[in-house]
Protein backbone atom coordinates (compact mmCIF):
# COMPACT_ATOMS: atom_id res chain seq x y z
CA UNK A 1 0.00 0.00 0.00
CA UNK A 2 1.28 3.42 -1.01
CA UNK A 3 0.07 5.94 1.58
CA UNK A 4 0.18 9.68 1.13
CA UNK A 5 -0.69 11.32 4.40
CA UNK A 6 -1.23 15.05 4.87
CA UNK A 7 1.18 16.20 2.15
CA UNK A 8 1.47 19.94 1.50
CA UNK A 9 3.57 21.82 -1.04
CA UNK A 10 3.94 25.38 -2.23
CA UNK A 11 6.21 26.44 -5.11
CA UNK A 12 8.84 29.06 -4.29
CA UNK A 13 7.26 32.44 -4.87
CA UNK A 14 3.77 30.92 -5.24
CA UNK A 15 0.93 32.63 -3.40
CA UNK A 16 -1.20 29.55 -2.73
CA UNK A 17 -0.15 26.03 -1.74
CA UNK A 18 -0.54 23.58 -4.60
CA UNK A 19 -1.17 20.66 -2.23
CA UNK A 20 -3.01 21.15 1.09
CA UNK A 21 -2.82 18.29 3.57
CA UNK A 22 -3.53 15.84 0.75
CA UNK A 23 -4.03 12.19 1.71
CA UNK A 24 -4.69 9.14 -0.48
CA UNK A 25 -4.17 5.39 -0.08
CA UNK A 26 -3.14 3.42 -3.15
CA UNK A 27 -3.66 -0.34 -2.65
CA UNK A 28 -0.89 -2.66 -3.81
CA UNK A 29 -1.37 -4.40 -7.13
CA UNK A 30 -4.04 -2.19 -8.67
CA UNK A 31 -4.58 0.91 -10.76
CA UNK A 32 -5.40 4.07 -8.84
CA UNK A 33 -6.82 6.93 -10.92
CA UNK A 34 -6.00 10.47 -9.93
CA UNK A 35 -8.44 12.91 -11.48
CA UNK A 36 -8.50 16.66 -11.29
CA UNK A 37 -8.83 19.75 -13.46
CA UNK A 38 -5.76 21.65 -14.64
CA UNK A 39 -3.86 23.05 -11.67
CA UNK A 40 -5.44 20.62 -9.21
CA UNK A 41 -2.02 19.37 -8.08
CA UNK A 42 -1.82 16.00 -9.85
CA UNK A 43 1.56 16.52 -11.50
CA UNK A 44 2.95 18.13 -8.34
CA UNK A 45 1.94 15.05 -6.34
CA UNK A 46 3.54 12.78 -8.97
CA UNK A 47 6.69 14.93 -8.84
CA UNK A 48 6.86 14.57 -5.05
CA UNK A 49 6.37 10.80 -5.27
CA UNK A 50 9.08 10.63 -7.96
CA UNK A 51 11.51 12.56 -5.75
CA UNK A 52 11.76 15.65 -7.92
CA UNK A 53 10.13 17.89 -5.32
CA UNK A 54 10.24 17.71 -1.53
CA UNK A 55 6.96 18.01 0.37
CA UNK A 56 6.87 20.79 2.96
CA UNK A 57 4.94 18.51 5.33
CA UNK A 58 3.27 15.13 5.43
CA UNK A 59 4.39 11.52 5.18
CA UNK A 60 4.61 9.10 2.27
CA UNK A 61 5.08 5.40 2.97
CA UNK A 62 5.02 2.09 1.13
CA UNK A 63 3.79 -0.72 3.38
CA UNK A 64 4.87 1.38 6.38
CA UNK A 65 8.36 2.16 5.04
CA UNK A 66 9.04 5.82 4.22
CA UNK A 67 9.16 6.18 0.42
CA UNK A 68 12.51 8.00 0.54
CA UNK A 69 14.04 5.12 2.46
CA UNK A 70 12.58 2.59 0.03
CA UNK A 71 13.94 4.51 -2.95
CA UNK A 72 17.33 4.72 -1.27
CA UNK A 73 17.34 1.00 -0.61
CA UNK A 74 15.75 -0.08 -3.89
CA UNK A 75 16.19 2.74 -6.42
CA UNK A 76 14.49 0.67 -9.10
CA UNK A 77 11.32 0.15 -7.06
CA UNK A 78 9.61 3.21 -8.53
CA UNK A 79 9.17 4.06 -12.19
CA UNK A 80 7.97 7.31 -13.69
CA UNK A 81 6.35 7.87 -17.08
CA UNK A 82 5.99 11.65 -17.32
CA UNK A 83 3.42 13.35 -19.53
CA UNK A 84 6.25 14.85 -21.61
CA UNK A 85 8.24 12.72 -24.05
CA UNK A 86 11.02 12.32 -21.54
CA UNK A 87 13.78 10.94 -23.75
CA UNK A 88 16.43 12.24 -26.12
CA UNK A 89 15.02 12.90 -29.62
CA UNK A 90 18.48 12.89 -31.20
CA UNK A 91 19.17 9.35 -29.94
CA UNK A 92 17.66 6.25 -31.48
CA UNK A 93 15.11 4.23 -29.50
CA UNK A 94 17.65 1.59 -28.62
CA UNK A 95 20.21 4.22 -27.56
CA UNK A 96 17.59 5.84 -25.33
CA UNK A 97 16.70 2.52 -23.72
CA UNK A 98 20.36 1.60 -23.20
CA UNK A 99 21.07 5.02 -21.69
CA UNK A 100 18.16 5.00 -19.23
CA UNK A 101 18.94 1.39 -18.31
CA UNK A 102 22.62 2.23 -17.87
CA UNK A 103 22.05 5.17 -15.52
CA UNK A 104 19.93 2.88 -13.37
CA UNK A 105 22.75 0.41 -13.02
CA UNK A 106 21.77 -2.15 -15.66
CA UNK A 107 24.57 -3.50 -17.80
CA UNK A 108 25.75 -6.36 -19.98
CA UNK A 109 23.37 -9.24 -20.65
CA UNK A 110 20.82 -7.98 -18.13
CA UNK A 111 20.56 -4.63 -19.93
CA UNK A 112 20.21 -6.34 -23.32
CA UNK A 113 17.53 -8.62 -21.94
CA UNK A 114 15.55 -5.75 -20.38
CA UNK A 115 15.83 -3.59 -23.52
CA UNK A 116 14.51 -6.46 -25.64
CA UNK A 117 11.78 -7.21 -23.14
CA UNK A 118 10.38 -3.66 -22.87
CA UNK A 119 10.72 -3.12 -26.63
CA UNK A 120 8.64 -6.24 -27.20
CA UNK A 121 6.14 -5.22 -24.55
CA UNK A 122 5.70 -1.72 -26.03
CA UNK A 123 5.85 -3.09 -29.59
CA UNK A 124 8.60 -0.76 -30.72
CA UNK A 125 11.03 -3.44 -31.91
CA UNK A 126 10.70 -2.41 -35.56
CA UNK A 127 11.64 1.22 -34.84
CA UNK A 128 14.53 0.56 -32.47
CA UNK A 129 17.20 1.88 -34.90
CA UNK A 130 15.23 5.06 -35.64
CA UNK A 131 15.80 8.38 -33.93
CA UNK A 132 13.19 8.97 -31.24
CA UNK A 133 12.49 12.46 -32.55
CA UNK A 134 11.32 11.01 -35.88
CA UNK A 135 8.64 8.75 -34.39
CA UNK A 136 4.88 9.31 -34.54
CA UNK A 137 3.04 10.44 -31.39
CA UNK A 138 1.82 6.94 -30.61
CA UNK A 139 5.28 5.38 -30.96
CA UNK A 140 6.78 8.12 -28.77
CA UNK A 141 4.21 7.36 -26.06
CA UNK A 142 5.12 3.68 -26.27
CA UNK A 143 8.83 4.43 -26.03
CA UNK A 144 8.09 6.70 -23.06
CA UNK A 145 6.29 3.82 -21.33
CA UNK A 146 9.02 1.31 -22.25
CA UNK A 147 11.70 3.44 -20.58
CA UNK A 148 9.64 3.55 -17.37
CA UNK A 149 9.53 -0.25 -17.30
CA UNK A 150 13.24 -0.96 -17.74
CA UNK A 151 13.90 -1.79 -14.08
CA UNK A 152 10.60 -3.61 -13.55
CA UNK A 153 9.43 -1.15 -10.88
CA UNK A 154 6.81 -2.34 -8.44
CA UNK A 155 5.29 1.15 -8.23
CA UNK A 156 4.60 2.90 -11.52
CA UNK A 157 3.61 6.56 -11.80
CA UNK A 158 1.87 7.28 -15.10
CA UNK A 159 1.21 10.96 -15.71
CA UNK A 160 -1.29 11.30 -18.58
CA UNK A 161 0.38 8.55 -20.61
CA UNK A 162 -2.12 8.60 -23.49
CA UNK A 163 -2.22 12.31 -24.37
CA UNK A 164 -2.22 13.02 -28.09
CA UNK A 165 -2.39 9.47 -29.46
CA UNK A 166 -4.83 7.89 -31.89
CA UNK A 167 -7.55 5.47 -30.66
CA UNK A 168 -5.53 2.41 -31.70
CA UNK A 169 -2.46 3.47 -29.73
CA UNK A 170 -4.63 4.48 -26.77
CA UNK A 171 -6.34 1.11 -26.73
CA UNK A 172 -2.93 -0.61 -26.89
CA UNK A 173 -1.54 1.54 -24.06
CA UNK A 174 -4.56 0.90 -21.83
CA UNK A 175 -4.30 -2.85 -22.44
CA UNK A 176 -0.60 -2.68 -21.61
CA UNK A 177 -1.27 -0.80 -18.37
CA UNK A 178 -3.88 -3.37 -17.38
CA UNK A 179 -1.36 -6.12 -18.09
CA UNK A 180 1.22 -4.38 -15.89
CA UNK A 181 -1.25 -4.17 -13.02
CA UNK A 182 -2.05 -7.83 -13.58
CA UNK A 183 1.60 -8.62 -12.83
CA UNK A 184 1.11 -7.17 -9.34
CA UNK A 185 2.38 -3.63 -9.87
CA UNK A 186 0.92 -0.67 -8.05
CA UNK A 187 -0.01 1.97 -10.62
CA UNK A 188 -0.90 5.59 -9.97
CA UNK A 189 -2.54 6.93 -13.09
CA UNK A 190 -3.48 10.52 -13.91
CA UNK A 191 -5.62 11.44 -16.89
CA UNK A 192 -8.14 13.92 -18.17
CA UNK A 193 -9.96 11.18 -20.04
CA UNK A 194 -12.79 9.99 -17.77
CA UNK A 195 -13.61 7.00 -19.93
CA UNK A 196 -10.03 5.76 -19.54
CA UNK A 197 -10.21 6.02 -15.78
CA UNK A 198 -13.60 4.31 -15.74
CA UNK A 199 -12.22 1.56 -17.95
CA UNK A 200 -9.03 0.64 -16.12
CA UNK A 201 -8.90 2.07 -12.57
CA UNK A 202 -9.81 0.05 -9.49
CA UNK A 203 -9.94 3.12 -7.25
CA UNK A 204 -10.24 6.80 -8.01
CA UNK A 205 -9.51 10.05 -6.20
CA UNK A 206 -10.88 13.34 -7.46
CA UNK A 207 -8.71 16.24 -6.36
CA UNK A 208 -9.00 19.98 -6.81
CA UNK A 209 -7.05 22.95 -5.43
CA UNK A 210 -4.65 20.56 -3.70
CA UNK A 211 -7.33 18.69 -1.72
CA UNK A 212 -8.99 15.31 -2.15
CA UNK A 213 -12.69 15.81 -2.84
CA UNK A 214 -13.67 12.14 -3.14
CA UNK A 215 -11.83 8.82 -2.97
CA UNK A 216 -13.11 5.28 -3.47
CA UNK A 217 -14.02 2.70 -6.06
CA UNK A 218 -15.97 3.97 -9.04
CA UNK A 219 -19.15 2.32 -7.73
CA UNK A 220 -18.68 3.89 -4.30
CA UNK A 221 -18.19 7.35 -5.76
CA UNK A 222 -21.26 7.17 -7.97
CA UNK A 223 -23.40 5.67 -5.21
CA UNK A 224 -22.32 8.08 -2.47
CA UNK A 225 -22.98 11.13 -4.58
CA UNK A 226 -26.29 9.97 -6.01
CA UNK A 227 -28.17 12.44 -3.85
CA UNK A 228 -26.16 15.50 -4.89
CA UNK A 229 -25.52 14.85 -8.57
CA UNK A 230 -28.57 16.08 -10.43
CA UNK A 231 -28.87 13.30 -13.02
CA UNK A 232 -30.79 10.07 -13.22
CA UNK A 233 -28.94 7.20 -11.55
CA UNK A 234 -28.85 5.01 -14.66
CA UNK A 235 -27.15 7.76 -16.67
CA UNK A 236 -24.63 8.70 -14.02
CA UNK A 237 -21.02 8.80 -15.11
CA UNK A 238 -17.68 9.71 -13.65
CA UNK A 239 -17.55 12.77 -15.87
CA UNK A 240 -20.81 14.12 -14.47
CA UNK A 241 -19.61 13.56 -10.94
CA UNK A 242 -16.27 15.17 -11.75
CA UNK A 243 -17.93 18.24 -13.28
CA UNK A 244 -20.27 18.51 -10.33
CA UNK A 245 -17.51 18.28 -7.73
CA UNK A 246 -14.99 20.53 -9.42
CA UNK A 247 -17.66 22.94 -10.76
CA UNK A 248 -18.04 23.81 -14.42
CA UNK A 249 -15.99 27.00 -14.39
CA UNK A 250 -13.00 27.05 -16.73
CA UNK A 251 -9.56 26.58 -15.19
CA UNK A 252 -6.31 28.33 -15.95
Amino acid sequence: MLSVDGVSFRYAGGEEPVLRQLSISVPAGGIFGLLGPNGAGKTTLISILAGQLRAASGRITVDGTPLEELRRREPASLGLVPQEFAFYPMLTCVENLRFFGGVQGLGGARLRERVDSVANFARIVSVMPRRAGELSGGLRRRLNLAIGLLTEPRILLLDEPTVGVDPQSRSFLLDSIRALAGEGRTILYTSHYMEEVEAICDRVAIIDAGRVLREGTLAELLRDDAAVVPVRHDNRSLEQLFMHLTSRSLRD
Partner: protein
Amino acid sequence: MRTLLALWTKEWLALSRDVHGLAVLFLMPAAFIVIMSLALSDVFRDGSGRPVDFAVLAADANAAAYLADGIAGEGFRATPAPASEAAARDQVRKGNPALVLIVPAGFGADPSATLKLLADPTLLPIQIAAFLQRVQGATLAVKSSSPPLSLEVVGNPRGGRPSSVQQNVPAWLIFGMFLVVMPISALFIAERRDGTLARLVSQRVPFSMLLLGKVGPLFVINLVQAALMLAAGRTLVPWLGGESLALPARWDLLAAVAASTSLAAIGWGLLVAVASRTIEQATVVGGVGTILAAALGGIMVPRFVMPESMQAWAGLSPMAWALDGFHAVILRQGSAADIALPCLKLLVLAAALLAAALWLHHSRRAG
Protein backbone atom coordinates in the same frame (compact mmCIF):
# COMPACT_ATOMS: atom_id res chain seq x y z
CA MET B 1 -2.97 47.58 -46.68
CA ARG B 2 -5.09 46.24 -43.87
CA THR B 3 -3.23 42.92 -44.09
CA LEU B 4 0.13 44.64 -43.90
CA LEU B 5 -1.06 46.71 -40.94
CA ALA B 6 -2.19 43.57 -39.16
CA LEU B 7 1.20 41.93 -39.85
CA TRP B 8 3.07 44.99 -38.55
CA THR B 9 0.92 45.09 -35.42
CA LYS B 10 1.49 41.41 -34.78
CA GLU B 11 5.25 41.77 -35.35
CA TRP B 12 5.44 44.78 -33.05
CA LEU B 13 3.54 43.00 -30.27
CA ALA B 14 5.65 39.86 -30.64
CA LEU B 15 8.91 41.83 -30.59
CA SER B 16 7.84 43.98 -27.66
CA ARG B 17 7.08 40.85 -25.63
CA ASP B 18 10.37 39.13 -26.44
CA VAL B 19 12.10 40.62 -23.43
CA HIS B 20 15.27 38.59 -23.88
CA GLY B 21 15.65 39.35 -27.56
CA LEU B 22 15.19 43.05 -26.88
CA ALA B 23 17.66 42.88 -24.03
CA VAL B 24 20.29 41.58 -26.45
CA LEU B 25 19.49 44.33 -28.94
CA PHE B 26 19.64 47.18 -26.47
CA LEU B 27 21.69 46.17 -23.45
CA MET B 28 24.58 44.49 -25.23
CA PRO B 29 25.56 47.43 -27.44
CA ALA B 30 25.14 49.74 -24.45
CA ALA B 31 27.40 47.55 -22.32
CA PHE B 32 29.93 47.30 -25.15
CA ILE B 33 29.98 51.07 -25.59
CA VAL B 34 30.70 51.54 -21.89
CA ILE B 35 33.37 48.84 -21.60
CA MET B 36 35.20 49.50 -24.87
CA SER B 37 35.08 53.29 -24.44
CA LEU B 38 36.60 52.99 -20.99
CA ALA B 39 39.13 50.37 -22.10
CA LEU B 40 40.39 52.49 -25.00
CA SER B 41 40.02 55.90 -23.36
CA ASP B 42 43.77 56.35 -22.77
CA VAL B 43 44.67 55.28 -26.29
CA PHE B 44 42.53 57.99 -27.82
CA ARG B 45 43.46 60.60 -25.21
CA ASP B 46 47.23 60.82 -25.74
CA GLY B 47 48.13 58.18 -28.27
CA SER B 48 49.21 55.56 -25.77
CA GLY B 49 47.77 53.46 -23.02
CA ARG B 50 48.94 53.17 -19.47
CA PRO B 51 52.65 54.04 -19.28
CA VAL B 52 54.88 51.06 -19.98
CA ASP B 53 57.48 50.63 -17.23
CA PHE B 54 61.13 50.37 -18.24
CA ALA B 55 64.53 50.40 -16.58
CA VAL B 56 68.07 51.13 -17.73
CA LEU B 57 70.83 48.84 -16.45
CA ALA B 58 74.33 50.25 -16.81
CA ALA B 59 77.66 49.93 -15.04
CA ASP B 60 77.71 53.70 -14.73
CA ALA B 61 74.73 54.74 -12.58
CA ASN B 62 74.92 58.33 -13.80
CA ALA B 63 74.77 57.25 -17.45
CA ALA B 64 71.82 54.99 -16.66
CA ALA B 65 69.93 57.81 -14.97
CA TYR B 66 70.75 60.18 -17.82
CA LEU B 67 69.46 57.75 -20.45
CA ALA B 68 66.37 56.90 -18.38
CA ASP B 69 65.52 60.59 -18.13
CA GLY B 70 65.88 60.97 -21.88
CA ILE B 71 63.72 57.95 -22.70
CA ALA B 72 60.91 58.58 -20.17
CA GLY B 73 57.72 60.21 -21.41
CA GLU B 74 55.30 59.60 -24.28
CA GLY B 75 53.89 56.52 -22.60
CA PHE B 76 57.10 55.17 -21.01
CA ARG B 77 57.84 55.42 -17.28
CA ALA B 78 61.26 54.83 -15.73
CA THR B 79 61.56 52.41 -12.80
CA PRO B 80 64.59 51.47 -10.66
CA ALA B 81 67.18 49.35 -12.44
CA PRO B 82 67.47 45.62 -11.63
CA ALA B 83 70.62 44.41 -9.86
CA SER B 84 71.94 42.34 -12.76
CA GLU B 85 71.18 41.18 -16.28
CA ALA B 86 69.87 37.87 -14.91
CA ALA B 87 67.54 39.70 -12.51
CA ALA B 88 66.47 41.97 -15.37
CA ARG B 89 65.63 38.96 -17.56
CA ASP B 90 63.64 37.39 -14.73
CA GLN B 91 61.68 40.59 -14.04
CA VAL B 92 60.90 41.19 -17.72
CA ARG B 93 59.72 37.62 -18.06
CA LYS B 94 57.15 38.47 -15.37
CA GLY B 95 56.29 41.72 -17.17
CA ASN B 96 57.48 44.12 -14.49
CA PRO B 97 59.16 46.19 -15.83
CA ALA B 98 58.18 45.41 -19.41
CA LEU B 99 61.45 46.72 -20.89
CA VAL B 100 65.05 46.82 -19.67
CA LEU B 101 67.77 48.55 -21.67
CA ILE B 102 71.22 47.10 -20.94
CA VAL B 103 74.07 49.52 -21.53
CA PRO B 104 77.53 47.94 -21.88
CA ALA B 105 80.57 49.32 -20.05
CA GLY B 106 82.37 52.07 -22.01
CA PHE B 107 79.28 52.74 -24.08
CA GLY B 108 80.04 56.46 -24.52
CA ALA B 109 83.61 55.89 -25.82
CA ASP B 110 83.27 52.69 -27.85
CA PRO B 111 81.41 53.26 -31.15
CA SER B 112 80.82 49.53 -31.63
CA ALA B 113 79.30 49.00 -28.17
CA THR B 114 75.91 47.36 -28.63
CA LEU B 115 72.86 48.16 -26.54
CA LYS B 116 70.64 45.26 -25.59
CA LEU B 117 66.90 45.59 -25.03
CA LEU B 118 65.00 42.95 -23.07
CA ALA B 119 61.27 43.12 -23.83
CA ASP B 120 58.12 41.61 -22.34
CA PRO B 121 56.62 39.24 -24.96
CA THR B 122 53.10 40.49 -24.33
CA LEU B 123 53.97 44.00 -25.56
CA LEU B 124 52.65 44.96 -28.96
CA PRO B 125 55.38 45.33 -31.63
CA ILE B 126 54.30 48.95 -32.11
CA GLN B 127 55.10 49.68 -28.45
CA ILE B 128 58.55 48.13 -28.79
CA ALA B 129 59.14 50.18 -31.95
CA ALA B 130 58.08 53.37 -30.14
CA PHE B 131 60.48 52.57 -27.29
CA LEU B 132 63.35 51.96 -29.72
CA GLN B 133 62.71 55.40 -31.20
CA ARG B 134 62.88 56.93 -27.73
CA VAL B 135 66.17 55.07 -27.12
CA GLN B 136 67.64 56.39 -30.37
CA GLY B 137 66.65 59.92 -29.46
CA ALA B 138 68.20 59.66 -26.00
CA THR B 139 71.45 58.05 -27.19
CA LEU B 140 72.00 60.67 -29.89
CA ALA B 141 72.47 63.12 -27.05
CA VAL B 142 75.42 61.00 -25.87
CA LYS B 143 76.86 59.81 -29.18
CA SER B 144 76.99 61.31 -32.63
CA SER B 145 75.43 58.29 -34.33
CA SER B 146 72.81 55.72 -33.40
CA PRO B 147 74.44 52.78 -31.60
CA PRO B 148 73.74 49.20 -32.70
CA LEU B 149 70.98 47.62 -30.64
CA SER B 150 69.97 43.99 -30.21
CA LEU B 151 66.45 43.09 -29.18
CA GLU B 152 65.61 40.07 -27.06
CA VAL B 153 61.96 39.36 -26.35
CA VAL B 154 62.29 37.36 -23.16
CA GLY B 155 60.62 33.98 -23.35
CA ASN B 156 59.61 34.33 -26.98
CA PRO B 157 60.75 31.16 -28.74
CA ARG B 158 61.52 33.19 -31.87
CA GLY B 159 63.65 35.61 -29.86
CA GLY B 160 62.39 38.57 -31.88
CA ARG B 161 59.19 40.54 -31.69
CA PRO B 162 56.03 38.63 -30.76
CA SER B 163 53.86 38.02 -33.79
CA SER B 164 50.17 38.78 -34.10
CA VAL B 165 49.32 35.08 -34.13
CA GLN B 166 51.30 34.59 -30.92
CA GLN B 167 49.17 37.24 -29.21
CA ASN B 168 45.81 36.37 -30.76
CA VAL B 169 45.60 32.59 -30.53
CA PRO B 170 45.50 32.44 -26.70
CA ALA B 171 42.89 35.22 -26.51
CA TRP B 172 40.43 33.73 -28.99
CA LEU B 173 41.08 30.24 -27.73
CA ILE B 174 39.83 31.31 -24.30
CA PHE B 175 36.81 33.04 -25.80
CA GLY B 176 35.94 29.93 -27.79
CA MET B 177 36.23 27.72 -24.73
CA PHE B 178 33.87 29.94 -22.72
CA LEU B 179 31.29 29.79 -25.53
CA VAL B 180 30.63 26.25 -24.34
CA VAL B 181 27.95 27.94 -22.20
CA MET B 182 25.63 27.91 -25.23
CA PRO B 183 25.42 24.15 -25.93
CA ILE B 184 25.47 23.27 -22.21
CA SER B 185 22.53 25.50 -21.37
CA ALA B 186 20.53 24.66 -24.51
CA LEU B 187 20.78 20.92 -23.90
CA PHE B 188 20.15 21.20 -20.17
CA ILE B 189 17.06 23.38 -20.59
CA ALA B 190 15.71 21.03 -23.27
CA GLU B 191 16.22 18.12 -20.85
CA ARG B 192 14.32 19.99 -18.15
CA ARG B 193 11.53 21.05 -20.52
CA ASP B 194 11.11 17.55 -21.98
CA GLY B 195 11.00 15.85 -18.58
CA THR B 196 14.17 13.82 -19.13
CA LEU B 197 15.84 15.51 -16.17
CA ALA B 198 12.80 14.76 -14.00
CA ARG B 199 12.88 11.16 -15.11
CA LEU B 200 16.60 10.84 -14.26
CA VAL B 201 16.06 12.44 -10.84
CA SER B 202 13.15 10.05 -10.20
CA GLN B 203 15.56 7.22 -11.00
CA ARG B 204 17.67 8.46 -8.11
CA VAL B 205 20.49 9.69 -10.31
CA PRO B 206 21.98 12.39 -8.04
CA PHE B 207 21.81 15.88 -9.52
CA SER B 208 25.52 16.31 -8.82
CA MET B 209 26.12 13.19 -10.95
CA LEU B 210 24.00 14.64 -13.76
CA LEU B 211 26.15 17.77 -13.73
CA LEU B 212 29.37 15.77 -13.59
CA GLY B 213 28.06 13.71 -16.50
CA LYS B 214 28.13 16.86 -18.58
CA VAL B 215 31.62 17.90 -17.48
CA GLY B 216 33.46 14.93 -19.05
CA PRO B 217 32.37 15.26 -22.72
CA LEU B 218 32.46 19.05 -22.66
CA PHE B 219 35.95 18.97 -21.15
CA VAL B 220 37.09 16.78 -24.04
CA ILE B 221 35.40 19.13 -26.54
CA ASN B 222 37.18 22.12 -24.96
CA LEU B 223 40.55 20.38 -25.21
CA VAL B 224 39.92 19.41 -28.84
CA GLN B 225 38.95 23.06 -29.43
CA ALA B 226 42.27 24.14 -27.91
CA ALA B 227 44.24 21.68 -30.04
CA LEU B 228 42.44 22.75 -33.22
CA MET B 229 42.97 26.45 -32.57
CA LEU B 230 46.67 25.91 -31.87
CA ALA B 231 46.86 23.86 -35.06
CA ALA B 232 45.13 26.66 -36.97
CA GLY B 233 47.73 29.13 -35.68
CA ARG B 234 50.48 26.72 -36.63
CA THR B 235 49.29 25.77 -40.12
CA LEU B 236 46.29 27.74 -41.39
CA VAL B 237 47.60 31.23 -40.58
CA PRO B 238 50.98 30.73 -42.33
CA TRP B 239 49.18 29.07 -45.25
CA LEU B 240 47.18 32.28 -45.63
CA GLY B 241 50.33 34.39 -45.53
CA GLY B 242 50.67 35.14 -41.79
CA GLU B 243 53.34 34.07 -39.33
CA SER B 244 53.26 30.62 -37.84
CA LEU B 245 52.45 30.16 -34.15
CA ALA B 246 55.53 29.15 -32.14
CA LEU B 247 54.46 26.37 -29.80
CA PRO B 248 55.71 26.28 -26.21
CA ALA B 249 58.27 23.77 -25.01
CA ARG B 250 56.16 22.79 -21.97
CA TRP B 251 53.07 21.03 -23.33
CA ASP B 252 52.16 19.85 -19.85
CA LEU B 253 51.81 23.45 -18.64
CA LEU B 254 49.76 24.36 -21.70
CA ALA B 255 47.46 21.41 -20.99
CA ALA B 256 47.13 22.47 -17.33
CA VAL B 257 46.07 26.00 -18.29
CA ALA B 258 43.67 24.70 -20.96
CA ALA B 259 42.16 22.23 -18.48
CA SER B 260 41.67 24.88 -15.78
CA THR B 261 40.12 27.27 -18.30
CA SER B 262 37.81 24.53 -19.55
CA LEU B 263 36.59 23.63 -16.05
CA ALA B 264 35.85 27.29 -15.27
CA ALA B 265 34.00 27.67 -18.59
CA ILE B 266 31.96 24.50 -17.98
CA GLY B 267 31.16 25.63 -14.42
CA TRP B 268 29.87 28.92 -15.82
CA GLY B 269 27.81 27.04 -18.40
CA LEU B 270 26.28 24.76 -15.76
CA LEU B 271 25.28 27.65 -13.50
CA VAL B 272 23.67 29.51 -16.41
CA ALA B 273 21.88 26.31 -17.44
CA VAL B 274 20.46 25.65 -13.97
CA ALA B 275 19.57 29.30 -13.29
CA SER B 276 17.89 30.01 -16.64
CA ARG B 277 14.29 28.97 -17.14
CA THR B 278 14.29 29.25 -20.94
CA ILE B 279 16.80 28.88 -23.76
CA GLU B 280 16.27 32.56 -24.61
CA GLN B 281 17.19 33.53 -21.06
CA ALA B 282 20.30 31.35 -21.18
CA THR B 283 21.29 32.87 -24.52
CA VAL B 284 21.11 36.37 -23.09
CA VAL B 285 22.79 35.66 -19.76
CA GLY B 286 25.32 33.15 -21.07
CA GLY B 287 26.12 34.68 -24.46
CA VAL B 288 26.14 38.31 -23.46
CA GLY B 289 27.90 37.54 -20.17
CA THR B 290 30.65 35.71 -22.03
CA ILE B 291 31.13 38.50 -24.57
CA LEU B 292 31.24 41.15 -21.86
CA ALA B 293 33.70 39.11 -19.78
CA ALA B 294 35.85 38.88 -22.93
CA ALA B 295 35.70 42.62 -23.54
CA LEU B 296 36.58 43.29 -19.90
CA GLY B 297 39.20 40.56 -19.58
CA GLY B 298 41.56 41.69 -22.31
CA ILE B 299 40.42 39.34 -25.06
CA MET B 300 39.27 42.08 -27.40
CA VAL B 301 41.51 44.90 -26.19
CA PRO B 302 44.87 44.13 -24.55
CA ARG B 303 44.75 44.98 -20.87
CA PHE B 304 47.89 47.11 -20.98
CA VAL B 305 46.21 49.70 -23.18
CA MET B 306 43.38 50.07 -20.66
CA PRO B 307 43.51 52.84 -18.03
CA GLU B 308 44.82 51.68 -14.66
CA SER B 309 41.38 51.88 -13.00
CA MET B 310 39.91 49.76 -15.78
CA GLN B 311 42.73 47.23 -15.45
CA ALA B 312 41.71 46.65 -11.86
CA TRP B 313 38.22 45.73 -13.08
CA ALA B 314 39.68 43.63 -15.89
CA GLY B 315 41.43 41.53 -13.27
CA LEU B 316 38.02 40.33 -12.09
CA SER B 317 37.28 38.58 -15.38
CA PRO B 318 38.11 34.86 -15.40
CA MET B 319 39.18 35.32 -19.01
CA ALA B 320 41.93 37.66 -17.78
CA TRP B 321 43.17 34.88 -15.45
CA ALA B 322 43.12 32.39 -18.30
CA LEU B 323 44.96 34.85 -20.53
CA ASP B 324 47.64 35.29 -17.86
CA GLY B 325 48.07 31.52 -17.78
CA PHE B 326 48.28 31.12 -21.56
CA HIS B 327 50.65 34.09 -21.89
CA ALA B 328 52.89 32.59 -19.22
CA VAL B 329 53.21 29.40 -21.26
CA ILE B 330 52.98 30.53 -24.89
CA LEU B 331 54.60 33.96 -24.76
CA ARG B 332 56.87 33.90 -21.73
CA GLN B 333 57.89 30.21 -21.78
CA GLY B 334 57.22 30.25 -18.03
CA SER B 335 57.41 27.53 -15.41
CA ALA B 336 54.81 25.75 -13.28
CA ALA B 337 55.14 28.50 -10.68
CA ASP B 338 54.11 31.08 -13.28
CA ILE B 339 50.81 29.38 -14.09
CA ALA B 340 49.99 28.28 -10.53
CA LEU B 341 48.03 31.37 -9.52
CA PRO B 342 45.91 31.74 -12.67
CA CYS B 343 45.13 28.01 -12.66
CA LEU B 344 44.24 28.07 -8.98
CA LYS B 345 41.88 31.02 -9.50
CA LEU B 346 40.17 29.24 -12.41
CA LEU B 347 39.79 25.98 -10.48
CA VAL B 348 38.38 27.72 -7.39
CA LEU B 349 35.93 29.54 -9.65
CA ALA B 350 34.91 26.27 -11.31
CA ALA B 351 34.22 24.67 -7.91
CA ALA B 352 32.27 27.73 -6.72
CA LEU B 353 30.13 27.83 -9.87
CA LEU B 354 29.36 24.11 -9.62
CA ALA B 355 28.44 24.50 -5.93
CA ALA B 356 26.17 27.45 -6.79
CA ALA B 357 24.42 25.39 -9.49
CA LEU B 358 23.82 22.55 -7.01
CA TRP B 359 22.57 24.91 -4.32
CA LEU B 360 20.18 26.59 -6.75
CA HIS B 361 18.76 23.25 -7.87
CA HIS B 362 18.20 22.02 -4.31
CA SER B 363 16.62 25.29 -3.16
CA ARG B 364 14.12 25.11 -6.06
CA ARG B 365 13.33 21.48 -5.32
CA ALA B 366 12.30 22.34 -1.77
CA GLY B 367 9.66 24.75 -3.12
